[in-house]
């Protein structure tokens, strides 16, 4: 009765739990099914048709992201029929806008006047800003699809650059809806949605206003979710190529949630921040401060040398002199007025290790318990 239910994928049997989609069973078992519109943890839309698979007995190919696995279902993920269909889906997506990567012959003659003008405005006549870091390009490469089969759809909407953080390039939007899912189902900021209808469809914010005049709070979840070059961080556009950056995982230094971050470093400078997918506690999500508020690290206003007050003015000095002075003064004050005449304010900003050292310093060196930090403030 309670016999384990099994789905057959590419000739092998796999158990599944009720409600699990074909895609989920496949991913769990390291069977690759390409996806584009699928955003983990959100309702499948089945919009892009890239993840289609062949299911025995089904008249049409089925979107694996939206089809639940069933007992004795026989699934093929890379059959000739699947591959043909997938190529067509990719070709259509490539023709839907300015996808001028190597996958598409990018001669100027292919471009409409409007697109060329849009490109000129943004110095992007040459290549897409996410060249080499684009899921659509990856698919075109994998399935060896060129974009010349269909004429390019004319772009109807100009680029939006009037906010400090995110460039919205509608000419490169494939309307996969991942940004809409990210905004509404993951962050639940409900700032953007599908607007207009049919060929005029556009991702809009609060009745088609610029992001800065909408409910958008610039968490950037949409940028991280965008599989193509439609949503890009303003500061990285045409400045940062992802393979030239080193990614370092760390913990955010703003609020107490402790989001896991990836700092993208180029030439010893943080150029971009993303959330670590699949890692607690934030599972890839960030807020505006965590994602965009990193410029302080490389600020020219950072202190680089110790300062000592001389004749009423703070003046640059060497470490030796500064440390000697601090040690001597603290020692003298302790000698003259006792340990409890000295206080230490440690910090909610520094590490556990550094707080431990501050606690040890106050208690074992100064011999006072006058140590506190700004938890109360």
């Amino acid at each position: 009765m309670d016999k384990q239910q099994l789905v057959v994928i590419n000739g092998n049997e796999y158990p599944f739990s009720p409600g699990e989609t074909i895609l989920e069973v496949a991913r769990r078992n390291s069977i690759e099914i390409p996806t584009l519109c699928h955003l983990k943890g959100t309702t499948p839309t089945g919009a892009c048709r890239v993840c289609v698979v062949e299911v025995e007995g089904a008249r049409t190919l089925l979107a694996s992201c939206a089809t639940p696995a069933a007992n004795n279902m026989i699934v093929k993920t890379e059959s000739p029929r699947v591959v043909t269909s997938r190529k067509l889906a990719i070709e259509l997506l490539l023709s839907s806008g300015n996808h001028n990567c190597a996958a598409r012959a990018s001669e100027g003659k292919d471009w409409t006047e409007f697109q060329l003008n849009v490109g000129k405005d943004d110095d992007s006549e040459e290549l897409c800003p996410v060249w080499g870091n684009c899921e659509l390009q990856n698919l075109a490469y994998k399935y060896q699809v060129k974009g010349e089969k269909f004429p390019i759809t004319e772009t109807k909407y100009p680029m939006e650059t009037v906010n400090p953080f995110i460039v919205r390039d509608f000419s490169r939007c494939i309307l996969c809806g991942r940004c809409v899912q990210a905004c509404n189902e993951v962050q639940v900021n409900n700032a953007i949605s599908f607007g207009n209808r049919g060929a005029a469809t556009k991702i809009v914010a609060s009745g088609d206003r610029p992001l800065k005049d909408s409910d958008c709070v610039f968490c950037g979840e949409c940028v991280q979710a965008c599989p193509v070059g439609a949503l890009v961080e303003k500061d990285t556009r045409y400045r940062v190529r992802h393979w030239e950056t080193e990614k370092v995982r760390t913990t955010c230094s703003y609020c107490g949630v402790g989001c896991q971050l990836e700092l993208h470093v180029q030439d010893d400078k943080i150029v971009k921040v993303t959330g670590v997918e699949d890692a607690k506690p934030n599972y890839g999500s960030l807020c505006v401060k965590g994602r965009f508020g990193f410029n302080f690290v490389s600020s020219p206003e950072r202190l680089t040398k110790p300062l000592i007050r001389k004749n009423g003015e703070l003046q640059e000095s060497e470490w030796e002199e500064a440390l000697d002075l601090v040690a001597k003064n603290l020692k003298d004050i302790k000698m003259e007025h006792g340990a409890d005449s000295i206080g230490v304010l440690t910090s909610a900003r520094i590490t556990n290790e550094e707080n431990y050292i501050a606690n040890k310093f106050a208690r074992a060196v100064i011999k006072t318990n006058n140590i506190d930090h700004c938890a109360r403030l």
Partner: protein
Amino acid sequence: MAGLAAAFGSGAMTNTIADIGEADVILITGSNTTENHPVLSTVVKRAVKNKGAKLIVVDPRKIKIAGFAHQYLRPNLGSDVAWINGLMHVIIKEDLYDKAFVEERTVDFSSMKEILEKYTPKYTEEVTGIPAQQIIDAARMYAGAERGSILYCMGITQHTTGTDNVKSLANLAMLCGNLGIRGGGVNPLRGQNNVQGACDMGGLPNVFTGYQPVNNEDAIKKMETAWGVTDLNKKVGLKVTEMLPKAHDGELKALYIIGENPMVSDPDLNHAEDCLSRLEFMVVQDIFLTETAKMADVVLPSRCFAEKEGTFSNTERRVQRVRKAVNPPGGAKDDWKITCEIGTRMGYAMAYTDSEAIFNELAKVTPSYGGITYDRIEEEGLHWPCPTTDHPGTPVLHIGKFPIGRGNFHSIDYIPPAEQVDDEYPLYLTTGRVIYHYHTGTMTMKTDGLNEQAPGCFVEISAGDVAKYNLYDGEAVIVSSRRGLLKAEIKVSSKAVDGSIFIPFHFARAAANKLTNAALDPVSGIPEYKVCAVKIEKAA
């Protein structure tokens, strides 16, 4: 945190962030969650939108998260004890409480019950301004939950009755048996990345690491042995809010300030400045020349989070790695190295090869961190307490029993805020943060985009009050209290309620803390940032 420690024996978030998504009912109070803990707020919003959780928001401002709430209650500033008591009154009257939990796991229920007698919905309405029916509805909703989660933040603690407020929330959670279960708990949301860690690591005047009391003989012995010293000071030290008055009186001669900016964050700034200027010697260790550093005798340049190795402990007690991504500017050094070099120069050798060596030492003397190693948290952090290297960590506290055995109910009566409005200062002021900035702005104000989104100070006021005081949106005004004044622009907002205004405290040039009251909670020493009386006038 003192409030939770008194109730349960441990003063930290009882449950995890992910756990909030398991709750049937979430009660948020004194937390502007979407602006101050944006990513955590997504867990709440998803629970409400996708999982059918019920949300109750109790806050003097009609903040964004209130828009997701099934019930929004608007209490008068500083009336928290009263509305919580009001809820409990209804829950007991209607017999909705968890009798088994109260009987088996708590003490002092009956004396609390007596105090609650007078908090009828009608009386509660008189004190809090919340309509009686809303009190009844919210009580039924929270008590009806199988798993009810309470989230709170500085809107609860930054009052002269802050500790009472927290104890009251603990009372409410125990009354409904919402402790030691997934999706339940009393959860203080920590506002700074490592405020939990600073507390855990003995950055408090009364405890060593892991909350071991400084006046406990065993703890003293243990630390003396570990540190190779004798005669550790047994006297509980000064809280930050006590240090400044002592500096003023000349008893405190020197301050060594690491990564703090009390010249913007402290209450009653004009007084704070006077206190600090009386110090004989002040050292500030920071990444920028902050308002506080400008007053120092010596300033020591340190590294920021992206330039160092180590760990932070987040609000859910999860110890997570911090890793070096870039080199520090110029000669900036690790904070621990600077402190060690000063200690060594003072005659006590402090030398470590790296942050991991320090972590291993602190884990040895801190039972709750005893089982955590860098190796174990390479991929994913662990929740303390984690006493041994084979212990999986503790996501949910108080399962089966409290560290102090049974949980304490506290009988608490409502006490009004220290300062009340009057003819001269007719408006209440409350303070807080905005989403685009962080604390004193030292970090966020270096990003142009954040400044563009939130360029400066403002006075958030209701449409009603704007009309009453004959002002207009965007007008420059002077807001003053008994302690100081500031100039800023009016911002009419639906978040504001008639009779009270809000000013963010980030901006040094129009520092809200020139107005705030330094009156302290007698137990926690937390100032009453959230309530003071002000007046508003047109800027000439």
